[in-house]
Structures are given as C-alpha cells and as structure tokens.
C-alpha cells in the first residue's frame, strides 16, 4: 500500500517531465526519419510529410504510452485538467457566467443547508444527546380539550422525581429576569436550574466549576452563580479571576463559582447567568417553591442506559396520575398525567423549520436552474467544438477521452463554482442569521433551543458544498459528454458545420430552457404570493397607531421605590417622562400589542353569570397606567379611560374592549355593569368591579388573528412591579430615550431600562418570520429568473451565430430585418411560453406547501400568478431581444463570401 502511494507520488511528480520528454522524443524521431528521406533526395516538406504519415497516429501512441507507464489515470486527469483550464481561460465570459451561476446556486444551497443543519440535524451540543428527554405534565385545560404539555410546579416535580426510575438524573430549569447591580445596572436573563442541571446535560465549566446538587438544597440558602460565557466576556472581560468574586443580582449578593462554556446559553436560550433553583424565592417571591399548582419550569432528564422512550413514557404516565392525585385542583375535569419527549424534538419551532425547508427547496431549484444553464453551455460549447473534437478523434483520441474531457470541464467549473459558493455562503450566512427568527416559546414551559445566530460554516457544511459541487459537475457534464460521444462517429469530419435547420429546431437546448423557465416562474410566483401576504399582514389595522412611539421595559426587584411601591413609582416616573420636551402622552402596560398575551389571569363572571374555565381563559387581562390608550391612540368608545382617579384606595373599575362588550353584554351598554377578575395583584375572586369604559379592539396576539376579549385593569391599583412604558412623542421617538432613562433614574437610581424599541419595530418583529421567508424567497426567485434569462440568452446567442449563414441568405433573398428579429424572438419565446404553462401549473400545485406563511391570499391568487407570468415574459423578451437584434445585423455579403 505504502509502495503504491509512493509510486503514485513519484509518477505525479514526474508526470509533466514525462509528457515533455515523450513529446520531444517523438518529434525527434520524425525529424530523423525526415532527415534520412531528405538525404535520399526528397524535398524537405515532402520528406516531413511522409515521416509524419509513417509514424502513425501520435495521439493514440501517446495515450498508449501513458497507460504503458502505469497509474495512468492520474496523468490523464492532469492532462485533462490542464486542457480544461486552458480552454476556460480562452473563453473568459463563458467561464465567468458559468462560475457566477454555480456560485449563486451552490452558495444559496449551502447557506440554507447550514441553517437547516443547525435547526434539525446537527446533534445537540450535549453529552449523548439521544438520551435527553423533556418531561411534561400532560393535561387537558377542560374536559374534551386536547392533551397539551404543561410545565411543572416544584412540589409536583419533587414528588415525580422520587417515583421515577427510568432516568439517570433530571433537572428543572426556568427563565427569569434580574438586574445586575454595579455602575451600569443591566437587565439579566436568568436561568434558575436544579443542582443536577449541568451534570444531566453533560456541560462543564470553562473557569471555576458548574453548579452541583450541593449548591441547590436549601431554599434561599445558596447565593452562588455560574456566568454564561457571553456575560463573562461582555461584563468581566473574560477574566478568570471573576471566580470567587461576588456580584449583586437583584437585592442579593451572589458568589460567582464558575463560567459556562461558549455556545451554551441555557436550554432557555440567551441566558446570562445560571442560579440555583433554590434561590428563586429570593428573586421571585417566597412561595414559588411550595405552590402545588403554579407550573413554572421545564424538566430535562437523562434516560438510563438501555431504557427506551416508550418505557419512560409509560412510567411517566403512571407517575403523572399518581402525582396529580396528591395535588388538589379547582376543576378536576380529567386526570392529568405526564409524558416524555426527546429534547431534540423541541429544538425548533415547527413553523420555522417548515419555512426553512421551503427556502432550502427554493435554493435547490436555483441550483437546478444553474446546473441546467451549465449543461446547456457545455452542450453548446461541445457542439461549437465539434470540429475540434472530430479532429482529436481522428488523430487517435479515443471516445472515452472525449467524454472524460467534457466531464472534466463540468467538474472543474462546479468545483471552482462551489468554492466561490462557500465564499458566498460565508458572506451571506450572518445576514440570513440576522433575518432569521430565533428561539421563542416552545411547548409546556420550554423554549425552542434553536438560535439562528448559531449557524456556521463548518466541516459538515463544507462537505455538503463539496458533495453538491461534485454532483452538479457530474450531472452537468454527463449529458453533453454522452451526446458528444454519440456524435463522434464516422463521417463526422465531413459535416462539421451546424446547419440552420439543425440549430433552429426544438432540440435539447430548448427543452432545457423550457425547464428553466418553468422552475423560475414557479419560484417567482411563490415569492409573489409571500410578498402579497406580507403586504396584507403589514396593512392590518391592529387597533393602535405605532408611529412616533417608543417603548421600554423596567423590571424592579423587591427593593427601591419601584419594587416597594409600584403604583407610586409609575405615577412619579410618568410625571417625569411627561415633562420631557416633545412627549405627547405616556403610559404603561405589562405587555405590548402583537407580542402574544402575557396575562394568565382569569375572569370569573360578568354580572351574575359564572364562566367556565375555557371561557374565562380566553380573556386577556392587562394592567395599564393612565396615558396608555392615548400613547397608542386606542379609541375610547364608551365611558372613560383611566386617569389619576383610579389610584389605590379609590373604587376599582375596569375597561373592556369592543369585542368583550359585544360578546359579554350583547346589545347593552356595559358601562356600569360588574365583572369579577381573579388576579393576585388586582382583585380577588369574590370582588365584583365596575366596567367604567369600552375601548377599541387591539390585536395582542399574532397580527393575522382578530382581537379576543380583553379586560384592562388600572395599573395604579394593581401593585405589580414590572412595567412596559409606552411613550408618544412629536418627533423621532428614539431621541427621547436618554431623557427617559434619566427620568427613571431620578425616581429609582438603581433601575435599568431595557428592551428599548420603537413601536414600529415591535410591529415589524411580529411579522419577522414572514419577512424572513419573503425576503429570502424573493432573493432566490430573482436569482432564478436571472439565471433563466441567462440561459435563454446563451442558447439564442449561440443559435444566431450558428445560423448566421442561413440568416444571411434569408436577408440576401429580401427578408426584412423585422422578420429576422421576429424569427429569433419566436425561437426564444417558444420554450419560455411552454415553460410558463408548465411552471404555473406546478406553482398552483406547489404553493399549497406555503400554508401558514400565506395570509389574505389564496394559494392560487390570480394577481401573483399573472405577475409571475409577466415577470418571466419580460425576462424572456429581454434575453431574446439582444441576440435577435444581433441577428438583424448579420451582413449577407460577408456570410455569402465565406461560403
């Protein structure tokens, strides 16, 4: 084996010398023969001719000699490569078009592959990730409702952990937020985790140590913290000496015991610091670990070796029912159980993965069009080079050599194109990651793990790019090679000119153009469907006006003015903010429109009618401070909005939205009626409060879904600390941010503001996924259209060159330039028209997969289809016109003289 490798290397090194020597030796031989013949009296030229004839087919002997020498395929490849590169350099524009085509196709496919690989295929970065599962409570919200995954309460988790036997270990985790103290207060994303968390996942520490079970045994007893890598770098300059130091989180001093590795931001994603779950009562509230029915954290567990998922599920089902027995619930409509799901199943939002697959398909189509273009170019080139090939064939190059040569050309182009494609992917990857939607809420108190910013070009992606390039190269090279092989029969030398009839008929090249046109129009139509959906989504009136509005959040702990007296904090802060020049109105809420509801409060009854569980869960409850409706210009339809009268001690009143008014009191003025709302921060289940006003509907969930029932309670009477400020200004909304930050500091010096966004940004983020899919599909379909146009152009331009004689004769016989123009245009547009029909039919079938990405347009929206067809026709006409115009400039005299 080693000897063979050595031999191969030796041959590789000696190869070019061998070729040179062989060439020189054969020339010397012929020269010597000619010398002898000349010495016998033949004229020199005749002597040389005879000497060459006597020698025989040089190419054939050379090839035989190469194979006689052994390891010949390497020599052949090198010779082919050299020949190909020479040929490509001779035709730079052809080469550039081919490479650009491939770079775009392979680059796009590679980017989308890296995204999908990160989303779905790459193993999770944990020890033996196949053994990791998420445990859920499996519950129905009411009788007859579907079983849904729920998070755990601490007592239920503890009971379940006692009983379970299928697992090596398990750990709870939940997100929270806390303020990091210091000169620059900062809002931190906290993950409360059980002591076994790091051990269960198999994640270590890069400095210090990870949390252990001993760090999480006594409630409020372990003020220790593990920093995430990002915070460590950002805030502590990656200083290993941070271990052992103390940091102030909320009102408590925590000792840093370690730093988590880069790339691990917790199962919640985006975590800054890991704290023991036993410290949750300190940062959240006292009872959090003892409430049986407060389901607030997810559980990850590691299956025992040899225990299958089914076994674990059946055990969890049994244990889940036993645990449910122990914890009384209000409404026992059906027994709650528990279940296990592989951790990998919650890595990505199904909607995101669907969109990514669609986009991957789109890039694949672009690549296919690119490959067709390339095949076409090779085909044309090989036809144009038939004389050369015929000559090569006649001087002894075997048929195999010709096929090999064309294949080499396809491969060389696609490998170089692939390398360029990787560069494209490398440049475009971060842009796409920016556009891409990240994590987000998953099922049952978990988060989707995927974060698009994690996409990278690594070995797997490079391998994919290489594989794609090779397949493309073989695919594009094989067909022209096969055709060339078929055509190098005898008699070929006699008829190497492409005749007009032959170039003009509907041949292989036209079929390829038709396929390109079909694929391109299908993609463009799909993209247009998305564009129209996005347009409609953006045009939705969500019930508020977001222009000139800036928002930010504060989330006080239990200390400071904001923590101790939230109502007073709001009043003072809003007073300060309203004093800033340019501020028109300011208020607060808990959550913003279009961000999903954030209230889990329950409305129990209106007047004397009691609600069922299901009815009341559908109602959103929002604590808002005076000025909120004005800041977002939400109209007050009846009664009044909140004002300074709605403060602590005053009679409580609520405001409802229009839909609630219509549904709860059909045909009746609801102002003055009563409602009972169970929110721990506002009122108790037994207290009826009056409806004091009705406001317009606002879409709090997704933009495409009409408003549900909403109840607004006055924030000044609801002592809940976190708040989102909403400020309307006359000018640039971001210009007041600094003044607002100072205003908050005046009231509560230690309180950071975070999530500063204009309301327009908030609205845009609500359509982020649509925007992502639309932008990329638009980009890809534009590329596809361009490539198809290049394809048409290439085929026609060649055809015009090949038919120059015919065109010249026609013009000599009196054909008008306009007729010639029409002739060529028809030839170009025929495959386009056929492709258009095929493509639109295909699009009508395929557009259904866009599914939920469509809004307000049908999958066969005629406007999109017409516009798509129009775009293709325009591109086709443009691509046909240029060669057609050139055809009209053919000079009949010159063509005929060449005859």
């Amino acid at each position, binding site marked *: 084996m080693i000897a063979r490798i050595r031999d191969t290397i030796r041959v590789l090194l000696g190869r070019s010398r061998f070729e040179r*020597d062989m060439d020189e*030796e*054969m020339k*010397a031989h012929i020269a*010597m023969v000619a010398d002898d013949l000349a010495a016998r009296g033949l004229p020199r030229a005749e002597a040389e001719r005879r000497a060459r004839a006597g020698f*025989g087919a040089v190419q*054939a*002997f050379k090839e*035989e000699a190469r194979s*006689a020498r052994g390891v010949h395929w390497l020599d052949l490849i090198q010779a082919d490569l050299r020949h190909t590169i020479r040929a490509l350099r001779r035709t730079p524009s052809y080469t550039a078009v081919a490479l650009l085509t491939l770079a775009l196709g392979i680059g796009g496919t590679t980017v989308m592959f890296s995204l999908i690989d990160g989303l779905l295929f790459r193993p999770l970065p944990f020890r033996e990730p196949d053994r990791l599962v998420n445990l859920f409570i499996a519950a129905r919200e009411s009788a007859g409702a579907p079983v849904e995954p729920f998070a755990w309460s601490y007592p239920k988790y503890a009971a379940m952990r006692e009983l379970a036997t299928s697992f090596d270990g398990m750990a709870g985790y939940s997100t929270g937020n806390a303020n990091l103290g210091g000169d620059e207060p900062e809002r931190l994303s906290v993950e409360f985790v059980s002591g076994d968390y790091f051990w269960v996942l198999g994640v270590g520490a890069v400095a210090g140590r990870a949390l252990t079970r001993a760090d999480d045994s006594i409630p409020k007893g372990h003020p220790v913290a593990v920093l995430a890598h990002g915070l460590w770098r950002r805030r502590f300059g990656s200083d290993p000496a941070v271990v052992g130091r103390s940091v102030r989180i909320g009102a408590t001093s925590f000792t840093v015991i370690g730093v988590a590795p880069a790339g691990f931001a917790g199962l919640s994603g985006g975590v800054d610091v890991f704290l023991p779950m036993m410290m949750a009562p300190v940062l959240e509230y006292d009872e959090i670990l003892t409430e049986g029915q407060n389901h607030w954290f997810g559980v990850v567990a590691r299956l025992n070796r040899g225990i299958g998922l089914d076994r674990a599920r059946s055990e969890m089902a049994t244990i889940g029912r036993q645990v449910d027995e122990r914890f009384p619930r209000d409404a026992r409509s059906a027994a709650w159980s528990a279940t296990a799901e592989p951790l990998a199943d919650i890595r990505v939002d199904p909607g995101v993965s669907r969109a990514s697959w669609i986009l991957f398909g789109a890039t694949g189509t672009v690549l296919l069009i690119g490959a067709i273009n390339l095949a076409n170019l090779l085909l044309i080139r090989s036809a144009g080079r038939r004389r050369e090939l015929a000559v090569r064939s006649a001087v002894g190059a075997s048929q195999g050599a010709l096929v090999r040569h064309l294949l080499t050309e396809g491969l060389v182009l696609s490998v170089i194109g692939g390398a360029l494609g990787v560069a494209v992917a490398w440049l475009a990857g971060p842009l796409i990651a920016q556009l891409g939607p990240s994590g987000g809420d998953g099922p049952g108190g978990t988060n989707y793990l995927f974060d698009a910013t994690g996409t990278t070009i690594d070995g797997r992606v490079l391998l994919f790019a290489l594989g794609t390039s090779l397949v493309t190269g073989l695919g594009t090279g094989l067909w022209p090679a096969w055709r060339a092989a078929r055509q190098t029969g005898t008699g070929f030398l006699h008829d190497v000119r492409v005749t007009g009839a032959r170039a003009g008929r509907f041949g292989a090249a036209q079929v390829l153009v038709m396929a390109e046109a079909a694929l391109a129009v299908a993609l463009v139509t799909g993209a247009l469907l998305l564009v129209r959906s996005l347009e409609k989504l953006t045009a939705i009136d969500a019930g508020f006006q977001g222009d000139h509005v800036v928002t930010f959040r504060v989330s006080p702990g239990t200390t400071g003015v904001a923590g101790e007296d939230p109502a007073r904090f709001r009043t003072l802060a809003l007073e300060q903010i309203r004093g800033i020049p340019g501020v028109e109105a300011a208020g607060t809420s808990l959550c913003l429109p279009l961000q999903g509801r954030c209230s889990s409060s329950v409305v129990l009854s209106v007047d004397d009618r009691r609600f069922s569980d299901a009815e009341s869960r559908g109602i959103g409850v929002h604590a808002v401070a005076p000025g909120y409706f004005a800041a977002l210009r939400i109209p007050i339809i009846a009664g009044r909005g909140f004002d300074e009268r709605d403060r602590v001690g005053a009679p409580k009143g609520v405001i409802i939205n229009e839909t609630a008014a219509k549904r709860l009191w059909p045909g009746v003025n609801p102002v003055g009626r009563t409602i009972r709302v169970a929110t721990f921060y506002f009122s108790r289940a037994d207290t009826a409060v009056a409806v004091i006003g009705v406001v317009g509907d606002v879409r709090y969930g997704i933009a495409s879904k009409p408003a549900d029932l909403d109840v607004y309670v006055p924030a000044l009477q609801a002592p809940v600390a976190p708040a989102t400020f909403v400020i309307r200004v006359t000018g640039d909304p971001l210009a007041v941010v600094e003044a607002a930050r100072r205003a908050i500091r005046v009231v509560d010096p230690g309180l950071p503001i975070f999530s500063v966004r204009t309301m327009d940004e908030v609205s845009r983020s609500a359509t982020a996924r649509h925007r992502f899919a639309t932008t990329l599909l638009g980009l890809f379909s534009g590329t596809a259209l361009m490539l198809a146009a290049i394809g048409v152009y290439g085929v026609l331009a060649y055809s015009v060159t090949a038919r120059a004689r015919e065109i010249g004769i026609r013009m000599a016989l009196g054909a008008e330039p306009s007729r010639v123009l029409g002739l060529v245009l028809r030839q170009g547009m025929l495959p386009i028209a056929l492709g258009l029909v095929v493509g639109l039919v295909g699009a009508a079938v395929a557009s259904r997969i866009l599914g939920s990405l469509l809004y307000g347009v049908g999958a066969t929206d005629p406007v999109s289809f017409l516009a798509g067809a129009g775009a293709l026709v325009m591109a086709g006409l443009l691509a046909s016109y240029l060669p057609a115009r050139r055809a009209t400039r053919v000079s009949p005299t010159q063509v005929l003289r060449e005859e």
Partner: protein
Amino acid sequence: MATPPPELLQGTLDMLILKAVSLAPMHGYGILLRIQQFSRDTLAIQQGSLYPAVYRLEHQGLLSSEWGVSDNNRRAKFYQLTAAGRRRLKDEREGWIRLVDAIGAVMAATPADLQS
C-alpha cells in the same frame, strides 16, 4: 508481387527491442532501423507503436534511458539494457529458441514420423 511482411507474434516486439538495444545504447529510430536491418527488411514495424513498448519496458525496469545526441546531430533519447533487461533477454531468447525448435520440428514432420 512481394509477400507481405509476416505479422509479429504477440510479445515478440519487446524481445526484438531488448535484443536491438543489447548491442549498443540506441534511440528509438535507431532501434527500428536495427531491427529492419537484422531482419533483412522482412520485419516492418509501425514506427509509432515502438514507443508504447519502449516505455513499458522502461517502466518495468528492463531499460534505462538518457538524453544524448544522434549521428545527425539531433537531441535524442538513448536506451540501454539494465541488468534485469539482460536477464530477461536471455530468458526470452532461450524460450524463443525452444519454441522455434518445437514448431520447426512439428512443421518438418513427415509420414515416416507417424511410425515411431
């Protein structure tokens, strides 16, 4: 009409090349001339076909080569036998003589030979 030159038996070209080169280092054209001369113009070898055979022999280590200058002052590659080439030539010659004897004996057989 002259009889056409006899077809070379498969493999005999290698032997002829080895023999021609064994007398003195020689370039490709020289090898052809020598074979033609020794065979009294009976054997005509297609000129180009010499080279694949020569390269094969060189690759097998039976010939070695170096560049030199020919009689009429042209740069040419000269071949000579290696030790292995010499051994191979000896084996081939013995094999060939046995073969020719055997074939000759067969072809010289007369009815009288049937008796024994």
